[in-house]
């Protein structure tokens, strides 16, 4: 009797102890992740409070205006196009670079560092440099095309090329970052695999296709999740390079969200867009983790 009661008291004390240890992290999570998410969901069903007019319940009105908002749909289309272009390009490039710098090549450290540079540079500063590359008439790109006798082109000022120009900057930035993960994964592969393949006389391409690539699959899933999230949360380049223009040609979802929330001060509508964005992104992430992840892990 006394023994069991003291053990209950002990476990109670232990669990209090455990909760106390968890408390700091819990407070931060609730304050900065869970509560804002719930508050956003609630706000999306109210109107935007303005001056002396408080917020009132409007039901799904904010979601209806989203359906009618042509700029929102253009942002969706732009973003899907942007994702479809950046994700495969940056992952493919990352893999290529990783396989290359994994070999014993001259100046390997230097090349690795060069590839990784875009990731460590502050993005606003980098976007300003790219802005100069694209500037019509005296930008770097114009210097090259001009030397070849080609006519001048306004890369960021034409709707046909503006999104492509932003995509290029994003791929350049992402590839170096993803390369690090691939490189780390390649280094953990057992060297005896390579020796065995060499003894069997497998070609380099065959070795990559049948041995390295399948073993890199878990890394690919991880990188893919990140690439998808990054494709939908890009905003800093858009700010510097085009501010969503010309005529919304480069407006991505998060940029549209910023404009609605902090330029138009329509916070309720911005909350509704946020909810949609969070729901879509988390379902994509869940699909990737629970469906794709199962397929790539094998013993």
């Amino acid at each position: 009797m006394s023994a069991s009661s003291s053990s209950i008291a002990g476990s109670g004390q232990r669990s209090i102890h455990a909760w106390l240890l968890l408390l700091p992290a819990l407070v931060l999570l609730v304050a900065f992740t869970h509560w804002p998410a719930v508050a956003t969901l609630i706000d999306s069903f109210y109107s935007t409070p303005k001056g002396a007019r408080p917020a009132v319940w409007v039901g799904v009105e904010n979601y209806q205006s989203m359906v009618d908002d042509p700029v929102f749909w253009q942002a969706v289309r732009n973003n899907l196009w942007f994702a479809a272009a950046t994700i495969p390009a940056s992952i493919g490039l990352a893999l290529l670079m990783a396989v290359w710098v994994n070999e014993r090549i001259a100046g390997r450290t230097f090349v690795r560092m060069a590839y990784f540079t875009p990731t460590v540079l502050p993005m606003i500063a980098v976007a300003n440099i790219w802005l100069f590359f694209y500037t019509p008439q005296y930008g770097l790109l114009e210097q090259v095309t001009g030397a070849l006798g080609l006519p001048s082109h306004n890369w960021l000022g034409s709707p046909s090329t503006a999104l492509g120009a932003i995509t290029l900057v994003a791929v350049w930035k992402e590839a170096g970052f993803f390369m690090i993960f691939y490189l780390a994964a390649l280094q953990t592969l057992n060297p005896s695999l390579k020796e065995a393949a060499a003894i069997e006389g497998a070609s380099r391409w065959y070795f990559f296709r049948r041995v390295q690539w399948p073993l890199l699959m878990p890394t690919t899933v991880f990188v893919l999740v990140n690439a998808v999230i990054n494709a939908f949360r890009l905003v800093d380049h858009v700010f510097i390079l085009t501010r969503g223009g010309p005529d919304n040609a480069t407006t991505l979802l998060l940029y549209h969200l910023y404009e609605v929330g902090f330029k138009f001060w329509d916070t309720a509508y911005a909350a509704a867009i946020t909810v949609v964005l969070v729901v879509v992104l988390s379902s994509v992430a869940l699909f990737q983790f629970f469906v794709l992840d199962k397929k790539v892990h094998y013993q």
Partner: protein
Amino acid sequence: MQRNIFLKTLAASAVAMLGLGAGLAHAADPLEVPFYYPVAVGGPITKVIDGYANDFNKAHPQYKITPIYAGTYQETIVKALTANKSGKAPATSVLLSTDMFTLIDEDAIAPIDDFAKTDADKAWLKGFYPAFMANSQTGGKTWGLPFQRSTVVMYYNKEAFKEAGLDPNKAPATWKELSDAAKKLTKKDANGNVTQYGIQIPSTGFAYWMLQTLTTPNDVLLANEAGTKVNFDNPKVIEALDYWVNLTKEGVHPKGVIEWGTTPKDFMEKKAAIIVTTTGNLTNIKANAKFDFGVGQIAGNVRKGGSPTGGGNFYIFKKAAKEQQQAAFEFAKWVTQPERAAQWSMDSGYVAVSPAAYDTPILKKYGQDFPPALVARDQLPVSVAEFSTHDNQRVTKVLNDAVQAALNGTKTSAQAMKDAQKEADRILRSYQ
């Protein structure tokens, strides 16, 4: 030794704090007055503003104006409104004159008339140029005090004019003269690629403002005075936009959307012989252009020239304490006195806000030595208010997008303006 000093300082400040707590030194404390301001043109603007605040504080020991640099106009209004929503509004802020309706709708600002009680104050309030007050008053009340105000002017390269056989002492005065000059000023290399465009009008950020620079000479206003109705699909507006679009079609104006920020640079690098932009760039171009340049009034069409005004006003925030509001009012009044307004105009390139400022000896002399400094003032009598409506940022974006669509040829001018009209009507419905 050093440690000793550290401890002594610590002890001293602890004593000082206790003293404050006991209310000993309390009476002598000056009143903190936070003041947010943006920087939108080149030059050491932050230093100048800090200097004004210091001088004011010295003359008024009961107040302590604290200037807080808050970025661009856009960033400053985001910060000011966020602070206002959280209940800690700045006492005063310089924001775009076009944000007046937005600030009223947010119930963020207090009318200035309530502070101007004495006859001297009332006379001072009447002393500003009427063109600048058009964007500062609505519904019979004054909401903003003109401070860093501007108009659009035309900068032209006199050397390029001479080369092209044009009179370097006379800016093109009509649309016809302007497009003829632009044709003559456009230079091509052996491959047929343009090396110098005749004219350049920027179309990012302030596209609506540049459109207004064309609609004003065409004798049409883009919005009503109450900011509840727009006039985008008016044939005269479409004609004005078409004039701009045709310049690009004729190849005398660069294609696509043109950056606001790089336009002065294009002028200084001789990539464009004429540029149309704010007079706020004057001091910058004066300091950096390596050739002789002229400044002209906006070319006319149906009526003589005329440009929209632009730039920023002082606003006083409603949620600030009464004493802080009063201090903000005193500071704005102090800073817009003729001598100071004159100095500010020379330091920045902005238009001085009152005729009295142009009567001061220093600005008179400056105008004699450098006549381009007076062009913006001289076109004030034919100027109109900068485009501004309720839900201003949203309606402005609709207009900017329409201008960009027309310039890029994805829509005709007529189609672009009709679409914009429909969208703006929808946004403004709740204010009519």
